[in-house]
């Protein structure tokens, strides 16, 4: 018996290290420990072993079983490792670029708009939207623009034909003409008509003017405007907002200043200049950046707010101009050409 076991183990020790395939391994394993395996056969002989020899023989068989199992385990581990290794190709060249596409990019105007709305959000302004197609009332009348004002000319403003009908742009009076809004201030009117003060909104969006397109002008441009209506709003509050906005955007040594100006829907009205140290391609001490003022009482009256009770301010500026300043872009047309070399620079 002992000899038989020794022979069997010797054979296994020679055989298993040579097995490469899993199927060969299973077959070999069956030849030893399967129902008809050699070890199994030897173990079956245990019944005929005399009783007094049983402990000795049993021990021998168990030892043989353990040794055989270690051959099996080693072979299996080797075969499995080889199988895993076979799944791999040669080592990668980690210096090759990934062929997968990179993240896309947000348009610089979106980046600047979102930065502005985040800054304004911190002081309670929420973003509102309004239609790009407007009517004369919301774009002009309600903003105190007289009927014969040059801004209303067909020379300066895009109109839709008389027969045009818009299902979801409401008119105030039936005979108004549709037009493309010349500023996003129309959104302020729609917001005020919707409900009572207090109101603190920012309205970004497209605006349109019949203008020759060149490096600094675009017939289609974008604005961002703020409106705040509450009790006891003052010129000083307006200045505080502008200071806050531009310090947030450009750093704490940024300064703003007001120059008196004229807008039909604010009184007093100002133009806003800013002075900042780190703007690229700027060689003037002050740069004009937007317009602002205290909401004219006429505008309040028109939307049904009592000007004796409510006061407010409005501020607006061109988004392209701001983006051009921030990034040092020198031609407004680049925003609308979508050259990917341009788009990829800002993300």
């Amino acid at each position, binding site marked *: 018996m002992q000899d038989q076991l020794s022979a069997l183990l010797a054979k296994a020790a020679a055989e298993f290290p040579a097995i490469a395939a899993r199927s060969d391994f299973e077959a070999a394993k069956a030849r030893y420990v399967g129902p008809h395996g050699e070890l199994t056969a030897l173990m079956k002989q245990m019944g005929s072993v005399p009783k007094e020899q049983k402990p000795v023989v049993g021990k021998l068989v168990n030892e043989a079983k353990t040794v055989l199992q270690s051959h099996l385990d080693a072979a299996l581990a080797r075969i499995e490792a080889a199988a895993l290794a076979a799944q791999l190709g040669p080592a990668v060249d980690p210096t090759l670029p990934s062929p997968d596409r990179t993240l896309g990019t947000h348009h610089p105007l979106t980046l600047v708009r979102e930065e502005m709305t985040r800054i304004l959000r911190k002081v309670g302004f929420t973003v509102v939207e309004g239609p790009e*197609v407007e009517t004369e009332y919301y774009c002009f009348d309600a903003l105190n623009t007289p009927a014969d004002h040059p801004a209303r000319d067909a020379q300066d403003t895009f109109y839709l034909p008389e027969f045009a009908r818009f299902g979801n742009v409401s008119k105030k009076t039936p005979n108004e003409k549709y037009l493309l809004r010349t500023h996003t201030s129309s959104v302020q009117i729609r917001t005020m008509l919707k409900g009572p003060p207090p109101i603190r909104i920012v309205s970004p969006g497209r605006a349109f003017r019949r203008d020759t397109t060149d490096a600094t002008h675009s017939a289609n441009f974008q604005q961002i405007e703020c409106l705040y209506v509450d009790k006891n709003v003052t010129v000083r509050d307006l200045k505080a907002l502008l200071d806050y906005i531009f310090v947030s955007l450009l750093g704490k040594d940024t300064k703003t200043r007001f120059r008196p100006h004229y807008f039909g829907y604010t009184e007093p009205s100002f133009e806003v200049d800013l002075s900042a140290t780190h703007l690229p391609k700027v060689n003037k001490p002050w740069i004009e950046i937007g317009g602002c003022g205290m909401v004219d009482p006429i505008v309040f009256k028109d939307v049904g707010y009592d000007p004796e009770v409510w006061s407010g301010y409005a501020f607006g500026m061109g988004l392209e101009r701001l983006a051009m300043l921030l990034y040092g872009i020198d031609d407004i047309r680049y925003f609308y050409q979508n050259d990917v070399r341009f788009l990829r620079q800002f993300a």
Partner: protein
Amino acid sequence: MKISCNWLQSYVDLAGIADDEISRAITFLGFEVEQVIRTGAPKLDNVFVGEVLTRDKHPNADKLSVCTVDVGPVQGVKRIVCGAQNYTVGDRVPIALVGAVLPGNFVIKEAKVRGEASSGMMCSAKELAIAEDATGLLILTARPAAGTPINDVLPAGDVVFDIEITPNRPDALSHIGVARELAAWFKKDLSYPSVSFTPAAIVANPRIDLLKSVRVDAASDCPLYTATVVTGVKVGPSPDWMQQRLSAVGLRPINNVVDIGNYVMLEYGQPVHAFDFWKLAGAEIIVRHAAEGEKIVTLDNKERTLSAGMLVIADAQKPVVIAGIMGSADSGVSSDTIDLVLEVAYFKRQSVRATSKRLGLASDSSYRYERGVDVHSLDEAAHRFIDLILAHAGGQVAGPIHRVGADIPWQREITVTPAYINEKLGFEIPAADQRTALESLELGVVREEPTENRGPAWTFSIPSWRDDLDRPIDLVEEVVRLYGTEKIPASVITAPGLVGNDDPIVIFNRAVSAALVGQGFNECVNYTLRPAKELAAWATPAAVADLALANPFVEDQSHLRPTLVSGLLESLKLNQSRGVAASRLFETGRVFIERNGQLSECVAAAFVMAEETGERNWRTRESADFYAAKRHTATIGSFAGIELERQPTALVAAPALGWQEGHAATAGNLQHGWTSTFGLVSLAHLKALGIAGKVYAGFFAIVSEKVTADADRRSYKPFGLQPAALRDLALIVPEATASSEVQKALTKVARAAVGNAFALEAVNVFDVYQGKGLPEGAKSLAFSLVFRSSDRTLTDDEVNVIFTKIQDELLKTTPYQIRK
């Protein structure tokens, strides 16, 4: 408008105030300074008048002379080499002595010119930067004394401010108007021109009135008209000082009469006009509306056809002036004019504006009328006009001033308290300063009354030229203007909490952008206005017609956009043509689509994916296909609360327009608020555009008011923890059958078969096959069915029973076959 600093000095003393200070003052008074132009001689030290004593030929140069020049008792006689030829001994010329610095930083030193010593330079006008003339020395024909500093002899330099006058301030379209503002700013007195003419001064003899009649037939457009005859004038050049002032502000001097008219306009802001009396047929002036088709050749030598309603000044036969805009070429003053009619009138701004716009003809005069002239200053300007004509063209007033029209009354008062002004400003300006500021603008306090607790209430009278001041708030602006808007104090934002939600449209756009950027798309921004030609590929001719603007500016921006895809294709093409790698682009924005017979403004997003990426890569990735476009479109829809893949989807119906028939689909319908199209862009269209490779695109639009914030908080649904049982089933169906239809039928049958025994968790297509082993015109759709019970492991047997039942039921109720 251009404002001359020298001219301003006639009304306000600005001596000793630096140009930059004046420029700053104008800026902070509310008039943007667009340009500062310096004219005339700059300050020149060590440049004097000298008299040429001798002139001898240079021994070593043909074109040079060696001169001795007397530069007065202090400087003495100098020896100077000179190259000019236009002077003779005895002439007086400017001499720059050693140490002088001429414009251009040219320093005069002791020098030797071709071996001859020279201690200075004889100067031309160009070398002194007072004129362009460089042909020779500036000969001082007035023969000022030798040794006189040159600045005492040359015309003083001027500083001209080109400023932008806001439309609310027509009063500032004049030198007096700007001077008034500066006087207030610098706290100086304003002195008006002294006008000596009065109607009473017209002498009785000779009091011949040449004008037979002055009649206004259109009083609504011309409320006040004045005409005065001056006889015996002599037309010639206007005085030097006037020519200099006019030249400084950009007007070419013509003759004394024309120049004086311009001068009065730029002084008072009141346009005036002078006729040659003898060119007025019938010696009549009629202010009337033009007859339709009436013609006039204007001063610029162009024939203009007038229409009814345009206001003209006519003689007995024809129009001689388009009122307030421009006179006719042949009624003007010429060198042989001797008798004048001086017109000073008030025309309504609406009338001038409408005519000017209609004719496309504008002038300094029409610009002022359009913005509004002060009718109450009209007489003063008229008298000033007469004064200057008599002084500089001679002649005498003949006959009375014809004055047609009623006086227009003016009285306006505004009552305000300093407390109100400070409340609006949010900071304190002392009451006395407020009052001084307003008074310096010639607003007079006519009453002062105490109030209970708000200090004095002042009632100010508003001068007639300040029609823009109407309410207390308007005075707030005047006070802060003169206080200095630069001095508005800083503060922190104080505002009660007022936090709403951003508009759902904004939230939608942000979500779409974030998702697509995450998928490698570059965000684009295209113009809203598109050319009709481009839209023809994306909308029917009728729809394109509805999108047209009434007054486009340029042909390629004539229509509202109904889609974002066309713009993205344009961007793609631009990149391809520039050799720039670009494959995935997107845009969010408004579009305009027909809905129920009207246009609807929609919120939209679109993307394109080009097969031709424009760059080569060492390892190729699978390129996009229809189903990629479908997924991205569904993603966009999901941010608007639309589950696109649960919606009926069909191939785009003919005409597929810009889309490729059979390879693009639509889901949704704008009648129900939203629409989407996705798939392959028409290959023919791409070819026409010149875009290389296939392009897949997706477009989603939703009526703007239908975008709502997803406010519902989801509630938890329990999910089974037991193992799932899977069965696969392949069905043979006609090839045109939509998979969604088969899936729907299968799901229905399976649900019924399962009943309440356990749950049918999912039915998914996992294979689509067509070809060998299947009948012609058929395809196989393989579905995997997932069953699960919430409380036990399902046995094969119980699942098999149900699975068999499903197959039997399918064969019974549908035309589908089961593929074994």
